[in-house]
């Protein structure tokens, strides 16, 4: 990496790292340190091929998502956030308890598997259509659909407080494909 490339890389990181870190922390179930590690590894990959990347942001995001769901990442020490118990919510939250519900949801999201969480982050935080999620993760649309369906079901199982919530559109469709999430390397 020559001086010009380094300067351009620094500029990109200065401009984009805060936004990328948000995604990385969400993918890591709210663990800031794990999110920083995830982003750091993605940026190291990007730095290695900086001259060949036209759109660094798209590249880094793709690496983030795939890194998170790929099996080889298991070779690195896992820093999954372990939550022994969900946050105390007192009585069942009502309409005014939106903040508590969000906390309950946050705790439940942290307890999903990395794959389940990644699919939800892509669908509901990045607001990507199923086809785009499938392209990024290198799997079929059916796999994305079933993974979304199962992830939402798992959230409900983890947090009974969510029982009163209406079903998501993804839950109203039959999920046909129950194969595991495949990942292309």
């Amino acid at each position, binding site marked *: 990496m020559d001086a010009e490339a380094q300067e351009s890389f620094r*500029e990109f*990181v200065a401009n984009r790292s*805060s936004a990328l870190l*948000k995604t990385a922390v969400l993918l890591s179930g709210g663990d800031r340190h794990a999110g920083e590690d995830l982003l750091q590894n993605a940026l190291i990959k990007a730095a290695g091929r900086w001259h060949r990347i036209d759109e660094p*942001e798209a590249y880094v995001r793709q690496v983030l998502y795939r890194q998170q769901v790929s099996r080889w990442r298991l070779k690195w020490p896992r820093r999954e956030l372990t939550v022994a118990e969900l946050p105390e919510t007192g009585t069942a939250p009502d309409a005014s308890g939106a903040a508590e519900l969000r906390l309950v949801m946050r705790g439940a999201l942290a307890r999903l598997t990395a794959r389940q969480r990644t699919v939800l*982050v892509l669908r509901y*935080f990045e607001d990507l259509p199923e086809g785009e999620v499938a392209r990024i993760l290198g799997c079929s649309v059916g796999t994305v659909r079933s993974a979304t369906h199962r992830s939402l079901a798992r959230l409900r199982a983890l947090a009974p407080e969510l029982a009163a*919530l209406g079903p*998501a559109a993804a839950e109203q469709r039959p999920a046909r494909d129950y194969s595991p999430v495949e990942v292309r390397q």
Partner: protein
Amino acid sequence: MNVDELVRDALRDQADGQPPAAPGFADRVLAVRLRRRSRRLATAAVAAVAVVAVVVAVPVLDSGKQDVRPSGGVEQTGITAHPDQSPPRDLIAAGRVALAAYYTTRNVEQSADRAVSERTYWLVNPGTKKYVKDDRWSYVAVAPGLRTAAVLERELPVPRIGLLDLASGQVKRWIPVDRPVAGVEFSADGRKLVATAYSKNPDRRVKIDGSQGWDAPFMESDRTGFHVIDVASGSSSWAGVELGGGAHNPDAFLNSRQDFGFTHDGRLAWSGMATEPGKKFYDFTGKEVPAPALERYRDWFVDAGVSPDGQLVAGQFAGRKWKTSSFVLDARTGKQREVRGQQLLAWADGNSLVAWDIGQDGNEYHQRLVLVTIGGEKTTPLSDFRSPKDNTKGRWEPVFAER
């Protein structure tokens, strides 16, 4: 509430609560990369002891000195990009500016030989950070802060200006003007409005001999002057501006819509013209005055205008160093530099701009919003590509405001 809505809320809430990345994050990444590479090389070259001794020495990066960071640091220059959205659904922002609204245009035929080019706006809701269609308005300017917009009703020119609360979609106040207006712009501090008065609709379209579609009337202007309005009190002053040699003088003709704007410091009004010298400056009584020192090189058709600190001016298409690029000029000397971007739209900070730029298909009309940096090679996409076809829903025009 559905479970997916709560997932969305919880994720956004958690993301919004994240402090920005620490300064020097890039240095940290580069240092770790160097260490890992050094280890790999060291393993490979284990037999060549002398070489290993050199390679494993990890240089200490001089953190900060070469760190190219836009002024204000990471936090203030946050970028909210949606490279998959065109037209955008969710707020797009970079540094100090946000895409406050966008509009599409279509020609609405009124008779066999007359039409009006009408805009349809989508305005940002500062609460949900989403763009919402609001087809009540023929013209919209958004005030700094993204809370209020100045709106003009349909059937231009109109006798009143509305102050629209963007969160509720309600007009909070109407400001009447004694000469009807068709264009409006906020000063940089949001305290004043300049409203351009016309005696006829400047967006009317006609059939010109030899042309297939609708065209703006050529060498016809019905502009009469401008009002400067104090937003807080609603009081206004009027400045009548002669057309300069008459509406049909080929040496001084104006486009049918040629609105007035404020200079960077908000002390003068100015407007472009289709002929040399390309622009004229006026005090608030309508008297023509010399160009201020820092605005001499400004072009009225380059939306980005003067940089936040007033030292640079966004210029026209350059296309020398890259296939698509634009000039940025020193406001005092006019000295040019080139920056990526086909068309410069707004300053994100003292060093970066939001621009339209083309993609790999090379189609000059197929553009997306990008962030470009002076002295930088890379562009950061902020939106998806807009349609190259005029007067379609896919071809949207941005309206920027300071956030």
